[in-house]
């Protein structure tokens, strides 16, 4: 998927109300501009709209015929608008809009701008403190819970999609672009594994189980992120390993106990992480409330 060729000046022409527009950064299929409108600061995401029609959403159904990118963006905006937690990125002031820019069919929408660093960069400096790992687990559980309240699964929980705000230090989950609704029309071709390969859950890989997926799939990914945050290592992958091998390990292998690498970590936290990494969803936590309660019992001193 190509990135759109759009500059800050192009955007200023399309949306004159913008006060300032910084140079963009590229993320996946989109350009992200830091913008202001008066005192309000937000991120504007711009991407190329495609031509392919997503099955099931037809004019007969009373819906627009959407290409896949637009359908995903529409879903993403709907999700971030519906989730009421500080741990899921919020919608910004500019709604999902289609526009032709430089002869390209584009779509754009806004979400809050978060000042801070993403977890993948933070972890490059070393593992987190135990208290921070527990807070990371708590924040992401609240995010998973908020998503599941609107019957959505994120499917791509990984350090690169988690920001830590400057100041209060809240962890925030980003990028709902591939979130999945088990009851809705699929935006994904059969047999395609969606999500960053080394952070997928076992059931994301097994196509037959995809319609049965629920929030416990995100809990598995959270387990991998927490493992990495506490030990500095991925539980199923080492640098240089093929991602297919990592997926094989996710399906078939048990990770080393986290305390092998971080002996001083509380046993309670190790138990939580290993339980989240259960191969079957029924071995993880039945509810987010149960997981939050378990995290609340981890001693921090």
């Amino acid at each position, binding site marked *: 998927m190509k990135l759109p060729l759009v500059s800050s000046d192009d955007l200023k022409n399309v949306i004159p109300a913008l006060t300032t527009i910084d140079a963009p950064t590229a993320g996946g299929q989109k350009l992200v501009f830091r913008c202001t409108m008066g005192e309000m600061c937000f991120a504007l995401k711009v991407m190329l709209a495609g031509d392919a029609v997503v099955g099931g959403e037809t004019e007969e159904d009373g819906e627009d015929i959407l290409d896949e990118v637009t359908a995903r963006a529409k879903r993403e905006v709907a999700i971030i608008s519906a989730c009421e937690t500080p741990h899921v990125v919020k919608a910004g002031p500019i709604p999902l809009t289609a526009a032709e820019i430089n002869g390209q069919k584009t779509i754009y929408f806004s979400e809050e701008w978060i000042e801070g660093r993403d977890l993948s960069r933070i972890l490059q400096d070393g593992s987190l403190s135990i208290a921070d790992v527990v807070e990371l687990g708590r924040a992401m559980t609240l995010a998973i819970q908020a998503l599941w309240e609107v019957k959505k699964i994120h499917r791509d929980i990984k350090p690169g999609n988690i920001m830590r705000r400057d100041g209060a230090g809240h962890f925030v989950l980003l990028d709902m672009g591939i979130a999945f609704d088990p009851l809705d029309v699929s935006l994904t071709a059969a047999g395609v594994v969606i999500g960053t390969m080394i952070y997928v859950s076992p*059931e994301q890989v097994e196509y037959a*189980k995809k319609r*049965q997926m*629920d929030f*416990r799939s995100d809990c598995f990914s959270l387990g991998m992120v927490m493992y990495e945050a506490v030990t500095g290592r991925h539980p199923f992958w080492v640098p240089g390993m093929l991602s297919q091998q990592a997926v094989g390990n996710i399906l078939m292998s048990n990770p080393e106990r986290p305390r092998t690498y971080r002996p001083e970590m509380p046993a309670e936290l190790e138990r939580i992480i290993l339980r989240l990494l259960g191969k*079957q*969803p*029924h*071995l993880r936590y*039945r509810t987010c409330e*149960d997981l939050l309660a378990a995290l609340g019992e981890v001693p921090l001193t």
Partner: protein
Amino acid sequence: MPVYAQHGYGKTDKVELGLQQGSLGGVILSPRDEKPTKLAAFVEDLQTAFEGVTVLFDPQFYASTISPVKDGNLPEYPYYQSVLTRARFVSPADLQQYVGQTLNYEMTLGLDRLVSPTIMFSDFSDPWSQIALSLAQQSIATHGQLADPPPLLLSLVMDETALRNGDALNEFLDIITAWDVEGFYIVVRRTDRGYPAYCEEIVLRNQMYLAYVLAEMNNFEVVFGYTDVLGVLLHAVGVAATGTGWHNSLRQFSLSRFQPSTGGSPPRPRYTSQTLLNSILVVPELAGIQTVGQMGNVLSGTAYDGVMVGNPANATWPPATSCLHHWEVVSDLVEDIASYATVSEKLDRVDELIVQGVATYGLLRNAGVVFEPSTGSRDLEVWLRSLRAFRQNVGL
């Protein structure tokens, strides 16, 4: 006390006595064996006389699919229909009707738990198991629409052969653990019609896994019906309660309970030994133990078994006494297990009890006592292998 009387034909006053002596914490009612008016009165009497007693009503809807069926009083209950073929479970409106009528009837009894209607299945991937799942989901939906209902237990009745397939069990558990419900009432149908029924190692291991995942890992309230002494293993992995009754057919579930009788001889008197974890025959087994002077190793020391100290062959041991003694033994075992804090410690204790039982059997055999296969140590050896395989599987 988490041992419930599994109600059946000929209850007399055994349930009340079991509750009075503290061996029982509740009862699982069988509408097949009681007329609706008598059953409703029995519920009221129990609730009046025994504060905190748990009264569950197994609607036995699964009998609807058995043909020919010996369904006793069930046709007198407003929700029961017979005989229902698979075609009668296709329409959502039909499922809604079966569930609605059953739960509405239970609401009239003033119970503190409702138990959903279900049908029996033999395999987690057969069409009947899909119907069981649909009935369960409909029960959750209907329960949500009732005015101020007591919590709901979803009932599942499965053939033990279903438990041979661990992969299918895993997928089944993935589905049912996602449901928002208080708990489950589970019955496992035994294929061996002997008493005690022989249970394969893999079946028992997976039954323990089923219980552990639901009760311990996912915090559901889990009640297993028709469990007998084997229920001790299930208590060790977290179940809330188990049911066992007075007849052999109320201690292990078999389809014959709902099929026309083919005749047979009356059951022989049995004695439940806490050490042997089994109900052995009074004659010749317990009498044989007395002959070789080993009674001290097998007597359970309940309020009833003093009469066995002399010659068991001459002891007065009516079925009601045998039943009350049985409940006290099972209850003592469960209480013993419950005194340990963690699942791991509880399993250690059960392991210890089984090893002790096997050793006692060895001692008795060496002394010349002869046991029938079903009342010998065969089952304990299977239990031990199942328990240890289960522990290895779940890392406990």
